[in-house]
């Protein structure tokens, strides 16, 4: 059964249309990679799915219910959104920050319950940041901060996680860790949508990929099909090396083809 | 400049003479001995410069519990020299309550919270409006006199005040045009005591002619263009002040090099007291001098 679905969703920011008739479905237990060139509308689609943007047309459903009909609190308990390059405006401790992820679950005026604290501890652990618990977030490196913010999203134990470039700025080891964490979350029954640019990583950790190009989904399906040489040339304007290692696809962009990339940016 | 200060000093004996007349009138009134039966307040507190002076003119010193600190300021108060021995207040409830006043006199615009607090606590507070003309002076004297139970002294003071005023002569001779010019380039027009005093001395005022009500800024250009016959300035305060720069403007100095420039000390007319008559008398003298010399006036320098 589909957890989250968008049906011919159109979105405009100001006067410019950013998404035109996007259909995408996310089932529970799967990780869907959202890829595409800069400016294709990936972040907009993610924000629309988080209920942050009004739709020009179409409908987004969570558990077969239109998003705008779901109560804020219920939506917040079900869905977590990890903004791109998010940070903390105040120098709170890592644990305080991650505990914010429990806000939708807490009753008014109550201190965090044992369940809350356990969830926070699990999230800290899963993102390998438990050792920073009482450090101010401002004292961490960029990569550490990114993991702390993911831990915040995980602490809410969401059924749907929408993560906007969660591996940007991470070293290779922590990139693998974060993707593995997302897989674990999916394995527990959640649906995960993750925006990313590393095609090899996308091919390896995502069940399906959706390639967004010029306001629409240009291709959608298994990573091997979506990441075809033709598609990469058309949408990214690159020629890539395709290979396999240990049964995993490897896609490494090699050079510009000169066609699609420029087109995509106009 | 020195001479202008001297003009202010010369005013003192006159005001003393006036007070002498007042006291004489009061003595006469006292001898008649028809005091009304109402209880006269015995611990009067005044919180305002203007009520300070009126109460000092009208009440016996032992009935005055306190006057405001401004009453002792020689620049602002005509009776600064007589304050010694009277307790000074700064318009604060905490100072006034221990004096247990049976009458508090206040101005209509000053120390608002204190006035309301005292009223709330059941004290009798009489507020005096700001005097804007000579009639207001009379009604203010009457109001204070009535409040302190000295109506006869009040009438005597009013009579003395009226006696000092120059006779009304609407058609007697020319009415030269005067301009009031305060620090920072302000002038006064209708509904101000200074304007009323200048007019009572037989002048027209530029403020009234320009339709100014109250006190507002007068551009130097307007002043010079109007070509007034007499310049009346407030007394320059001691010490450097940007406010006084306007008086030193070369254009102003050149324009009034040969025309009379009169300065009237603040304490004579900042409040609606009988001392305004002294200010009027002084201005009237300037006008008369001008008439006799066939000019509009003489420089008092």
């Amino acid at each position: 059964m589909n957890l989250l679905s968008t049906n011919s969703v159109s979105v405009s920011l100001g006067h410019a249309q950013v998404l035109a008739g996007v259909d995408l479905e996310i089932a529970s237990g799967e990780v869907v990679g959202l890829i595409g060139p800069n400016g294709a509308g990936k972040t907009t689609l993610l924000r629309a799915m988080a209920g942050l943007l009004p739709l020009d047309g179409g409908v987004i459903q969570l558990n077969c219910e239109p998003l705008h009909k779901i109560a804020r609190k219920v939506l917040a308990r079900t869905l977590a959104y990890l903004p791109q390059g998010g940070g903390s405006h105040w120098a709170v401790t890592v644990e305080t920050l991650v505990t914010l992820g429990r806000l939708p679950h807490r009753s008014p005026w109550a201190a965090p319950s044992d369940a809350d604290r356990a969830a926070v501890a699990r999230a800290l652990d899963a993102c390998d940041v438990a050792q920073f618990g009482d450090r101010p977030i401002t004292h961490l490196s960029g990569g550490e901060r990114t993991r702390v913010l993911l831990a915040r999203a995980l602490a809410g134990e969401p059924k749907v996680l929408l993560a906007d470039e969660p591996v940007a700025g991470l070293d290779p080891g922590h990139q693998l860790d974060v993707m593995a964490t997302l897989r674990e979350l999916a394995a527990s029954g959640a649906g995960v949508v993750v925006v990313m640019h590393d095609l090899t990583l996308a091919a390896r950790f995502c069940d399906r990929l959706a390639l967004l190009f010029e306001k629409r989904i240009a291709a959608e399906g298994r990573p091997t099909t979506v990441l075809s040489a033709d598609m990469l040339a058309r949408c990214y304007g690159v020629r890539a090396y395709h290979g396999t290692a240990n049964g995993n696809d490897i896609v490494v962009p090699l050079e510009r083809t000169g066609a699609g990339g420029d087109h995509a940016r106009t | 400049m020195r001479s202008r200060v001297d003009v202010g000093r010369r005013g003192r004996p006159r005001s003393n003479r006036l007070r002498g007349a007042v006291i004489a009138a009061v003595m006469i009134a006292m001898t008649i001995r028809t005091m009304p039966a109402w209880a006269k307040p015995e611990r009067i507190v005044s919180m305002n410069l203007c009520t300070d002076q009126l109460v000092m003119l009208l009440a016996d010193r032992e009935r005055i519990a306190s006057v405001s600190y401004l009453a002792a300021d020689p620049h602002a108060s005509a009776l600064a020299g007589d304050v010694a021995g009277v307790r000074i207040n700064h318009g604060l409830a905490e100072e006034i309550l221990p004096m247990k006043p049976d009458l508090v006199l206040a101005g209509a615009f000053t120390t608002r919270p204190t006035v309301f607090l005292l009223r709330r606590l059941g004290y009798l507070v009489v507020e005096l409006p700001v005097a804007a003309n000579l009639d207001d002076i009379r009604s203010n004297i009457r109001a204070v006199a009535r409040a302190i139970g000295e109506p006869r002294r009040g009438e005597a003071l009013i009579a003395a005040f009226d006696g000092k005023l120059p006779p009304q002569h609407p058609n007697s001779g020319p009415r030269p045009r005067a301009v009031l010019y305060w620090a920072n380039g302000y002038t006064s027009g209708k509904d101000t005591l200074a304007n009323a005093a200048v007019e009572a001395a037989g002048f027209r005022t530029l403020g009234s002619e320009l339709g100014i009500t109250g006190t507002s800024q007068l551009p130097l250009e307007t002043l010079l263009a109007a070509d007034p016959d007499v310049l009346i300035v407030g007394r320059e305060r001691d010490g450097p002040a940007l406010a006084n720069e306007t008086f030193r403007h070369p254009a102003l100095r050149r324009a009034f090099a040969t025309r009379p420039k009169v300065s009237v000390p603040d304490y004579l007319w900042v409040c609606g007291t009988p001392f305004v008559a002294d200010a009027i008398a002084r201005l009237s003298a300037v006008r008369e001098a001008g008439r006799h010399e066939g000019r509009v006036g003489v420089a008092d320098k």
Partner: protein
Amino acid sequence: MTADPTIAERRREGTPVLLPLLAVAVLAAFTASLLVGPAAIGVRETIDALLAGEVETTALIVREVRLPRALLGLLIGATLGLSGAALQGFLRNPLAEPGLVGVSASASFGAVLTFHTGLAGLFALALPLGGMAGACIGVVVVQALAGRDGSPLTLILAGIAVTSFAAALTSLALNLAPNPFAALEIMFWLMGSLADRSFEHVWLSAPFMVAGWLLLATLGRPLDALTLGEDAAQTLGFDLRAVRHRLVFGTALCVGAATSVAGAIGFVGLVVPHLLRPLVGHRPSALLPASALGGAVLILVADVAVRLLSPSRELKLGVLTALVGAPFFLFLVLRLRKELL
């Protein structure tokens, strides 16, 4: 699992120590406020005056002059501290202060207008009522200007617009003052003071201030969530538009009432949250109660200082807070610059 379970406990201990400490400080400052004044009244006499029934001069001074003054200091200080913390939290800017949403300036103008028209001379409550009317109009205009979204930027812009306009109108009223005495009185009032306020002022302003506090007190969690940014806060279940409404109306109620009875008192709402923020681990929600207590301490102490420094001719409270606040503000700017470099 390597998470140290005591971390959470240690952090939670932070505020429970701070809040009682601040509460004690409030109590001490409140007591000092009752003991200081131009009339020399001893500690024993003050206590007797508070408890005894008879209406003597001493009792009158303590109960009707000093007590309302101290109460207003407490209420207004808490208002400025709380609203400053809430605004800084919402705008995520340590330089925000209650005056920013335009309420102080419009309340000042409303009050000045009652001076100007002479209404202030007719009855004691004309002035604070005028201030509140001004605050109401100001907040409606700010809300209308700020539009329907919950964006902090539009709120700041609308607040600045209303503040400048109200300040200009206040200057105009000063220019057109009926006489120099009225102008002087307006100037004095604008400087902010608690001198000789009565219980009438307390009864009039306290309900509005408390109502404002209640609205602002509900903002703890949304402000915490806003630490993560607007998008994340919204997906944590907070309606930012509703949050902004509560913030603006809560601030308008309490700051409007405070300005109406005491004039504009600056810098408290800026300085207090900033000083206390590190002590509550930078958490916006924890900062709210701490900053309210801290604001009360600061205003009460400043009001005592005003009476000690110039016992007879009182220095204005707003002048003192600005005298202390401005150098602090400078220090703040310098430190911020150092952090950025």
